[in-house]
């Protein structure tokens, strides 16, 4: 069965390492924070100027001056630090964040990503997404593998305006964990109960399947 949003987050969380500084985008990526393995320390970077984001505040802790990049009220974790937006993106652009997780509309076999704009619809802007994809070495894109109508989002060439060019190497969809290299998708894992054939069918870009593809462990 296709992974739920929570299960996608759960599988991404397995890629975390102790001592990682991580930036989690809005949506599914945010849920990753709920699945940090026990005994592991991870520090969350919020690009509006906070390293060490904590959980939501209680009513008593609520503070209009303390929000995350999704504009939600948050708290600070022990050892947090605050900085301005130029410094926050110096951190991101300079490659100091260990892992970035963000959503997308489309990715393609060349590591291109489209995630911020659907022409003709309302254009809200890229926020920090272009900086995040350009600055990070280690990025995981989370998305559904195909639209509700069965149209693949893993393409030979992105059709929407790009957020970044040639910067994505790992994609976790509701069906599969995929690596991008040498201009091709490579199937690493499949969601429990999902067959390789189903994944092939819903992947428009060239997909390399080598040997037995293991099921994800959740």
């Amino acid at each position, binding site marked *: 069965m296709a992974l739920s949003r929570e299960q996608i987050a759960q599988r991404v969380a397995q890629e975390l390492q102790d001592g990682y500084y991580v930036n989690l985008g809005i949506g599914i990526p945010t849920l990753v924070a709920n699945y940090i393995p026990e005994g592991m320390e991870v520090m969350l970077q919020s690009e509006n100027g906070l390293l060490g984001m904590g959980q939501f505040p209680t009513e008593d802790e609520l503070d209009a001056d303390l929000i995350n990049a*999704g504009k939600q009220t948050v708290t600070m974790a022990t050892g947090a630090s605050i900085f301005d937006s130029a410094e926050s993106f110096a951190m991101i652009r300079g490659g100091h964040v260990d892992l970035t997780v963000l959503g997308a509309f489309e990715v393609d076999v060349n590591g291109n990503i489209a995630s911020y704009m659907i022409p003709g619809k309302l254009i809200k802007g890229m926020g920090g997404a272009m900086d995040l994809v350009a600055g990070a070495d280690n990025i995981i894109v989370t998305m559904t593998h195909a639209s509700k109508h069965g149209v693949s989002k893993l393409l030979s060439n992105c059709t929407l305006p790009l957020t970044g060019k040639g910067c994505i190497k790992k994609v976790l969809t509701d069906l599969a964990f995929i690596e991008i290299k040498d201009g091709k998708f490579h199937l690493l894992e499949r969601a429990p109960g999902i067959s390789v054939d189903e994944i092939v069918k819903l992947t428009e870009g060239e997909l390399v399947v080598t040997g037995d593809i293991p099921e994800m462990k959740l």
Partner: protein
Amino acid sequence: MAGFDKVVSSYEEAMAGLTDNMTVVAGGFGLCGIPENLIAEIKRKGTKGLTLVSNNCGVDDFGLGILLPDRQIKKIIASYVGENAEFERQMMAGELDVELTPQGTLAEKMRAGGAGIPAFFTATGYGTPVAEGKEERQFKGRDYILEESIVGDFAIVKAWKADRYGNLVFRKTARNFNPMAATAGKVTVVEVEEIVEPGELDPDQIHTAGIYVDRLILGNFEKRIEQRTVRKA
């Protein structure tokens, strides 16, 4: 107090000299750390044809969004402009010019403007619509685009505390774009929650030096929360 005393006593005085078609650089992220009373004063003045440089454009009835109904904004340079119906209407109708700029590039453009750096290279936006019309160049095998800096006629800033000399301290994530905005205005106007005497702030802990600040005013703030998320105690 003469010389370095930046304190003014009215919002009218704070925004004196702002005229039609000027460029205004504003601090704030969403509704957090926005100079809400300085924005209200711009609405009151009715200044038109403004180019605004700000990460966001507020919501319909708060923040920079309140400048929309009277069509005071000609152009906005921002990274994210959702959550605002009138904004959407004006943009779709072609009444409002929107220049979308990646958030980090926007912050760096303000910083560079204040720091006398006319342009810098960044990988952000390479190969995307943001790169259109911009110079591309490789350094050590990686592709970058050239981005130019921004300086405004006015900068409007919200800080937490200040001394009368305009030395500023920000609070939590209300800091965001405010320190860069403060450096990037020909005239920089700052509103704060508390003004203390010079010498009361620890020199090591001042976030923005008074040299950047032209006018300082004590304000009352609503500090509206955009996404109120709480957990049970």
